[in-house]
């Protein structure tokens, strides 16, 4: 264990492995998962490092269905718990995730996205935005969704996701992709034990004489009670709005703003540089939390920006939230690649130039 070292440690790591290492350092008490490409390194890394952490449960489940329900049980028993998977596996988990949202159980679910629909491809994609942000399972609920754009953020967001999940008693998701999972970068790893565990007086740990029994359930069969629970959830989602995070680059003087999250935001950063070199005033807006979504920040930008270009590795999902934020004040364009194809900065630049032409924006 790394308990003596209180300074961040610098290492060159794969995104998946960095995330796994971060989970140990964030005080994860249990992990349940099932192998699926392109995230199997997480379970492999955790299994290899497990002997250093004898009190941490690392268990390979028989399916994603079982894994998410093990997460439900462990979270309900008050443990800091994580599962990871990739798109088809996350689809299998949706029932359990809905139950966890309803039972208000904190946990971290990581989706290292691959291309879909169906069995799809094992190459990176962002086609699960709707599923992650709008609910995914049945009923009115939201996850807290964080979208890393670097291996460093694969580390940092593990801490943020556990903290937010416990603060709001809500499942949190890190929505990343196969490229970020597989790429290697230099990372600063926070020291072990730097994230205090939030008390869970509601957890089922055995009923002492002095308190009423604790019950973890998502069943509220009386309509009035069910609505009351829904109102509690909605109230929580309102409170969550203050946790919104985003990043803006060169947006102050921008005529065109690229809107992108995760890996695509990194590619768009290069596009922005290329555009600036050619004399086009292009900025970048990167939502970091996908739920809550930085609606107000985008709306404010629409006051002085000429047009928005949303770029995603899907057929157009987050662009709907950009349009909802901009409320028709300015044009919102979309460029996407699917099937596991990663767009290049140059092909995005061509789209920027088209937008510039359409709006007669001068260099």
């Amino acid at each position, binding site marked *: 264990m790394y308990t003596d070292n209180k300074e961040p440690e610098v290492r060159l790591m794969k995104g998946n492995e960095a995330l796994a290492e971060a989970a140990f350092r964030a005080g994860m008490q249990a992990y349940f998962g099932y192998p699926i490409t392109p995230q199997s390194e997480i379970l492999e890394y955790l299994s290899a490092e497990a002997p250093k952490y004898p009190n941490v449960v690392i*268990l390979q489940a028989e399916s994603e269905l079982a894994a998410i329900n093990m997460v*439900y049980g462990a979270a309900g*028993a008050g443990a800091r718990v994580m599962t990871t998977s990739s798109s088809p596996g996350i689809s299998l988990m949706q029932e359990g995730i809905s139950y966890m949202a309803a039972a208000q159980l904190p946990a971290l679910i990581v989706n290292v996205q691959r291309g879909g629909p169906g069995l799809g491809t094992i190459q990176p994609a962002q086609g699960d935005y709707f599923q992650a942000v709008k609910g995914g399972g049945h009923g009115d609920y939201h996850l807290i969704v964080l979208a890393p754009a670097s291996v460093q953020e694969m580390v940092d967001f593990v801490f943020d996701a556990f903290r937010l999940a416990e603060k709001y008693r809500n499942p949190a998701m890190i929505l990343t992709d196969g490229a970020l999972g597989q790429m290697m970068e230099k990372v600063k790893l926070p020291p072990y034990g730097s994230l205090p565990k939030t008390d869970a007086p509601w957890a089922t740990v055995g009923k002492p004489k002095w308190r009423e029994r604790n019950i973890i359930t998502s*069943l509220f069969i009386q309509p009035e009670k069910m609505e009351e629970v829904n109102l509690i959830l909605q109230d929580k989602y309102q409170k969550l709005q203050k946790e919104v995070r985003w990043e803006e680059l060169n947006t102050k003087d921008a005529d065109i703003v690229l809107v992108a999250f995760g890996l695509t935001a990194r590619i768009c950063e290069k596009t922005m540089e290329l555009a600036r070199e050619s004399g086009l005033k292009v900025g970048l807006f990167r939502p970091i939390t996908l739920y809550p979504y930085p609606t107000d920040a985008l709306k404010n930008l629409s006051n002085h920006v000429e047009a928005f270009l949303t770029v995603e590795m899907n057929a157009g999902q987050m662009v709907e939230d950009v349009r909802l934020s901009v409320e028709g004040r300015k044009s919102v364009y979309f460029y996407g690649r699917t099937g596991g194809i990663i767009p290049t900065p140059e092909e995005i630049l061509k789209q920027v130039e088209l937008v510039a032409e359409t709006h007669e924006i001068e260099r």
Partner: protein
Amino acid sequence: MKNAKIDGMEIVYKKPSTLTDTPMHYCPGCSHGVVHKILMEVVEELGIQEDVIGIAPVGCAVFAYDYMNIDMQEAAHGRAPAVATGIKRVLPNKYVFTYQGDGDLAAIGTGEIIHAANRGENILVVFINNGTYGMTGGQMAPTTISGMKTTTTPYGRDISVTGHPLKITELIAQLPGAYYVSRHAVYNTSTIRKLKKAIEASFNYQKLNKGTCFIEVVSNCPSGWRMSPVESNKWLVEHMLPFYPLGDIKVPND
């Protein structure tokens, strides 16, 4: 129930303190109430109320947590053994049990129970087998016996179409992780007493980390079977028990 003493009378029987005062929603003559009571009597007698966590299924026992005065979780349909695994792995010194019906355990949750038992999770599984989906109105279950009428086999179960009744308990007994596997019933006092002993033994085995204890209770469902409680118990003895014979299927050999 208060322990008030009435003049000239003595309390010879009372419900365990581990059951709440909530009136049960179960139909008259249903086995669930009896099994709940037996289970909670054992928890009281072993003095483990503070250390036990139960998992309710989807099915008629979905509200088990309204009646059992212990910490409980309500699982998704069939997933109770996975939920139990999650709880037991992070709280290995606590007692954990699931309470599941035949649809929950032997149909939609087949994968979870097989793998939990195969891992030898140190949990107790109480499996109520009444051969029907009681909560949804009496449809065919994986354990519905051949020829048995249900709302989805109104002419009797035809095994050439719907397959065979699943003897999941015998299947579980084959797994090395299963430590104690036993089939019981609660249609008379003698069977009730035997069940109670089996549950008590299972909690004791769990304390010793012996592996999965699996107890089937062959039960009636008067409403689902469209019978009076007395008729249903008679039918159970005449038709269910020949196919699901009572007794130990796997006993500890250490």
